[in-house]
């Protein structure tokens, strides 16, 4: 049996498998023992109450899905009083995903959720920044650095910044988050997309546009994981389209120190425990003693025939 432990910032996880925000809740306790997971990650919450987007909130596309759930939230006090206690008896560390409309609000919110029982804060910066024309924080290095910096001085909990695939400046955003004091990065959130019913001509989401997740997203977020793992020295957590143990290995090899499973849990609610077991089996079969032995080992040397330098 291999050593599946991995370290994210100050936190040691017993294995690198955890849920992605918004695709996990306490209801999963009815499927398996949550304590087998490396960590638990909540759906993003906001300080105030929010209702989320109009229905339909999900639809499927070629082997993947779109969602426009939005961030329905019962607010911070409901969360602290009702949700937090549910996780008290689990030893798997609890990561709280939070979102806010301004850097200041993010900081105040971080302070509020820095309570016993919370092991780390995941910063969902894919939400619109009302001080920047509604552009999501994660679109720009400046806005990202700003949010993380203010949060950094408001809490001693580890801060995990969740990046967006919608920006053209992935590496710059990652570096800004690191520099501002983030303890880890998550690559990545969903990609903005759209689906139309060709028969009726109707947008298939009530919100018209929504986020692409599932297998179709993997080549994009795997690329971001590789780019970020090379560009920063804080741990990167891979996320996007993971449903098989091969997917897990590819992310680890690309440089991720842990991974999050999202949509796959909807397709098979027991995906995460299966991946933990299979990862262990693969490591054993390859004679590897630990997950560490895989991380960042991607082979990019070019043994292949290189094409002729000049075309005539």
């Amino acid at each position, binding site marked *: 049996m291999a050593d599946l432990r991995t370290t994210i910032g100050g936190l040691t996880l*017993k294995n690198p498998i955890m849920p992605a925000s918004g695709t996990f809740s306490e209801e999963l306790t009815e499927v398996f023992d*949550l304590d*087998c997971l490396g960590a638990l990650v909540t759906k993003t919450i906001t300080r105030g109450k929010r209702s989320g987007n109009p229905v339909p909130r999900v*639809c499927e596309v070629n082997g993947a*899905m779109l969602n426009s759930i939005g961030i*329905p939230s019962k607010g911070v006090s409901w969360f602290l009083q009702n949700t937090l206690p549910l996780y008290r008896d689990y030893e798997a560390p609890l990561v709280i995903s939070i979102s806010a409309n301004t850097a200041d609000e993010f900081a105040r919110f971080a302070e509020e959720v820095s309570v016993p029982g919370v092991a780390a804060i995941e910063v969902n910066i894919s939400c619109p920044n009302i001080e920047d024309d509604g552009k999501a924080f994660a679109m720009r290095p400046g806005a990202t650095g700003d949010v993380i910096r203010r949060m950094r001085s408001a809490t001693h909990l580890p801060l995990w910044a969740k990046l967006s695939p919608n920006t053209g400046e992935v590496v710059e955003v990652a570096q800004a988050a690191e520099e501002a004091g983030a303890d880890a990065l998550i690559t990545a959130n969903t990609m903005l997309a759209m689906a139309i019913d060709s028969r009726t001509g109707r947008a298939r989401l009530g919100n018209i546009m929504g986020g692409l997740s599932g297998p179709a997203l993997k080549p994009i977020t795997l690329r971001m994981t590789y780019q970020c793992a090379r560009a920063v020295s804080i741990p990167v957590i891979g996320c996007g389209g993971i449903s098989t143990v091969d997917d897990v290995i590819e992310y680890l090899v690309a440089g991720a120190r842990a991974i999050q499973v999202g949509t796959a849990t*909807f397709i098979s609610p027991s995906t995460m425990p299966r991946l933990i077991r299979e990862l262990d089996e693969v490591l054993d079969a390859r004679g590897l003693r630990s997950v560490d032995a895989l991380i960042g080992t991607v082979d990019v040397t070019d043994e292949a025939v290189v094409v002729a330098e000049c075309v005539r």
Partner: protein
Amino acid sequence: MPASPCVVPDSIPHPYSIHEVECRVKTHDRVNGEYRRLVLSAPRSVLDCEPGQFFHLLCPQTEGFQPYLRRPMSIYSYDRIRGELSFLYKVAGTGTGALASLQPGEHLNIVGPLGRGFEIRREWRRPLLVARGVGLATLAPLASECARLGRPLTAICSARSPDLVMSTDLFRSFGAEVITVADAEGNSDVGSLTPLIEGLIRTRGIDAFFTCGSTRLMRMLQVIGSRHGIGGQVAVEQHMACGIGMCQACVRPFLRDGGAVNLRVCREGPVFDLHEVL
């Protein structure tokens, strides 16, 4: 360090109430032009069901249809002794189109049982079931439960045409008095049904409504119910992703404590109080 202490093989009984299992198809028949009945051989672990609950089906990948998400389907019947679980469904699109290709002997991956089923309150002695289309599937196990609890039952079954009215024999076998109505016969509209139902309230002493399959009929029952002080329950539908309460895809607004709240159809439902559906 044991690597994955949590992975309990499904063959071993475990304390979790939602199960993901592969079931063998026993039979799979056309009921009429549009509907099919799928009977699975199911393990005991998933057969602690209640009428009104549903399963989430991983429809197969076929040449023509590649569904990705699961599809929710009400329990049409469950039988712990025979180890059987069945669904009655209408071929609607990608998922049900793929489902229709399943052959006896093949396997289907299902997750469940899910959601909150019907509750037959003590004070509800003379229930009326009003079902339309595929709503019959959802109400069938409720009829069986009414029979078990010794509640004399009346059922109105509605469809586009008389040949699409299903399961009336099944309902009769549970001792129900069955009234069939059809669009093609002109007796299925609200204008015709309202006096019919108000007549039943008078003659049979109906004191609860259960319905599924038509928003129009649900609204009608809300009106009649308010007028006569009759409560009841309704099973509703909504697009789903996870089916177990994690994703918030399936919300609808309901009236609770004097205000509108969003509830998850997969978790707080699919059965709701008749008068709280907005």
